[in-house]
């Protein structure tokens, strides 16, 4: 049986285009707004949803996602609530893949086995855990694969050809190529360098390759979409969300439309780039 992630990448490939992967932080700026946003993302044009698990100390994230996590935590977000949101989302959408992205400590403290059971039951499809390199596969990667959840690994510009096989070995679902050396939302990805890197990774794997960190605008998303199976946009959506909040970081009527409008423009940009249809 195909997973939701496989099915979605295949569908996009059949349409001759890259998938748009959108990142928002769970619980930002509050539970209800975030849940409404989660539900609205597929219709706005998101093909795959990355749902950020807030953490106090996100060492790979730039200011936008750091602040989003702190807003969510201040509003009372927990990993249990994040799983509950996915569960509610699944009641109305059984096809859009949902990938949880974050750091290991909240999962470790929740309990790996309990987390995998609950995540699977909630309808989570995959995990991106920034601080679990292949050297720590026994922690969560292997148990997740055994539980039927994709463990999506990050490959980076510092991952050379010698290391790449180890990075890809237990990767499932897709490969997340980090297009810059740096933190989320800061530098702008160079489409040419990204194209070369994606080609390099594809020599080692049949999995789709999505590209993120440093994709900010519909134009840059389109440029990346020409060379990748997926384009991940996160900080730019968070920035759009933040710009609509009131002085006490509360959602306003403009919050939801601001994010879904940008998702729509990103989706149009990504869909406007024709790629060679893959089998």
């Amino acid at each position, binding site marked *: 049986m195909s997973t939701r992630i496989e099915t979605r990448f295949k569908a996009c490939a059949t349409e001759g285009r890259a998938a748009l992967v959108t990142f928002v932080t769970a619980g930002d700026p509050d539970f209800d707004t975030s849940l409404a946003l989660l539900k609205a993302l597929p219709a706005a044009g998101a093909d795959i949803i990355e749902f950020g698990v807030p953490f106090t100390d996100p*060492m790979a994230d730039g200011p936008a996602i750091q602040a989003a996590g702190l807003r969510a935590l201040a509003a009372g977000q927990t990993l249990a609530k994040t799983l509950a949101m996915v569960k509610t989302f699944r009641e109305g959408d059984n096809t859009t893949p949902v990938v949880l992205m974050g750091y290991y400590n909240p999962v470790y*403290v929740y309990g790996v086995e309990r987390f995998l059971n609950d995540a699977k039951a909630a309808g989570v499809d995959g995990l991106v855990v920034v601080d*679990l390199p292949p*050297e720590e596969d026994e922690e969560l990667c292997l148990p997740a694969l055994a539980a039927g959840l994709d463990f999506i690994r990050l490959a980076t510009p510092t991952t050379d050809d010698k290391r790449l096989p180890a990075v890809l070995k237990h990767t499932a679902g897709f490969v997340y190529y980090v297009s810059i050396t740096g*933190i989320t939302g800061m530098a702008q990805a160079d489409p040419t360098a990204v194209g070369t890197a994606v080609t390099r990774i594809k020599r080692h794997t049949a999995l789709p390759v999505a590209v993120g960190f440093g994709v900010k605008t519909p134009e840059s998303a389109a440029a990346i979409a020409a060379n990748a199976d997926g384009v991940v946009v996160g900080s730019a959506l968070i920035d759009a969300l933040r710009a609509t909040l009131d002085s006490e970081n509360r959602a306003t009527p403009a919050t939801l439309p601001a994010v879904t409008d940008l998702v729509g423009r990103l989706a149009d940009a990504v869909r406007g780039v024709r790629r060679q249809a893959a089998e």
Partner: protein
Amino acid sequence: MNAPNSFRTGPDDNGHFGLFGGRFVAETLMPLILDLETAYNEAKADPAYKAEMDAGLKHYVGRPSPLYYAERLTEHLRAGAAPGMGAKIYFKREELNHTGSHKVNNVLGQILLARRMGKKRIIAETGAGQHGVATATLCARYGLECVVYMGAVDVARQAPNVFRMKMLGASVVPVQSGSKTLKDAMNEALRDWVTNVSDTFYCIGTVAGPHPYPAMVRDFQSIIGTETREQMLEMEGRLPDSLIACIGGGSNAMGLFHPFLDDPSVRIFGVEAAGHGIPSGQHAASLTGGRPGVLHGNRTYLLMDGDGQIAEAHSISAGLDYPGIGPEHSWLHDTGRATYISATDDEALAAFQLVAKLEGIIPALEPAHALAKVADLAPTLPEDHLMVVNLSGRGDKDIPQVADILGTSL
């Protein structure tokens, strides 16, 4: 847990001390820490590197640091003890090192390693500023660019060290994120390293972070215990009976403890910062008040909430104000080889003043925590008990803060 045959063989090849340690970092950093491990292992085996270290420790740092019999403190504590009681107290004088603390031992080792690796830009995190000052100092000495990340709260309470670092040519970046203290400075340093992978060496100041840092920093700091061992044998003809040191991340303590871990007669005490008291929740005692978790590249005891969110530590001492602890300490705690206790802000402040008056030595607020527990423990031990406390830093940097607390305007 069964006691291992040796407490000195860790970590394993993956950087684990039992459950603790490891390499919990983003993929971008993995190749860098693997390179660092290789470079460190090569350097360790190279007599030229050792010769350069030895020369630097002797002529630039000023080692060996004295082991000093604190006679008046000993007598003072015996006066309040039962007859025949009151341990003989020695200070390991790390505050006499160049830059005023033990931090320079580690920084020298890492900077010489950075030079071997051809790295031109050094980054560091700092809490009290002692590691930042030591890093800025060695960068000045070797003509390297130096960027120090320091929580904005710490920048305010450790102004003398901020000025020192700037005098030495370093850029000091006040970190405004999170709790604006040491943990956030470390986050920001890691973000810098992820961004500047090709030319930058991250000089971590304590026995924490991803493997190989906890073992490497321990190795560099073990000079403290190695010297103490020789000096005590020379002065008293035998090993000390107990060792005691303060713990934030735990590098001064690990440096003193490690050479004695396989001497079962030597009791080992680590002193965490209890802040306003453990029950208040406002403290920095990760072992006493925390649970195992994963932060800053390693698994260790952490202060956190039920959702795995890291708590803000509190201590009067910026150098101890960290919600984690080096992974090897967590392992020594779980195996029972070392005993971890804690001292409050008030106890440390009292010890700070007591030692200044009795010994003419103004300790930093960090070792003042260890001194506070010396004052508790020594009277319960016999007069022939030899106790070594690591006087890991001098208190000059704390003068403005202590004056403020005591209501004196400078």
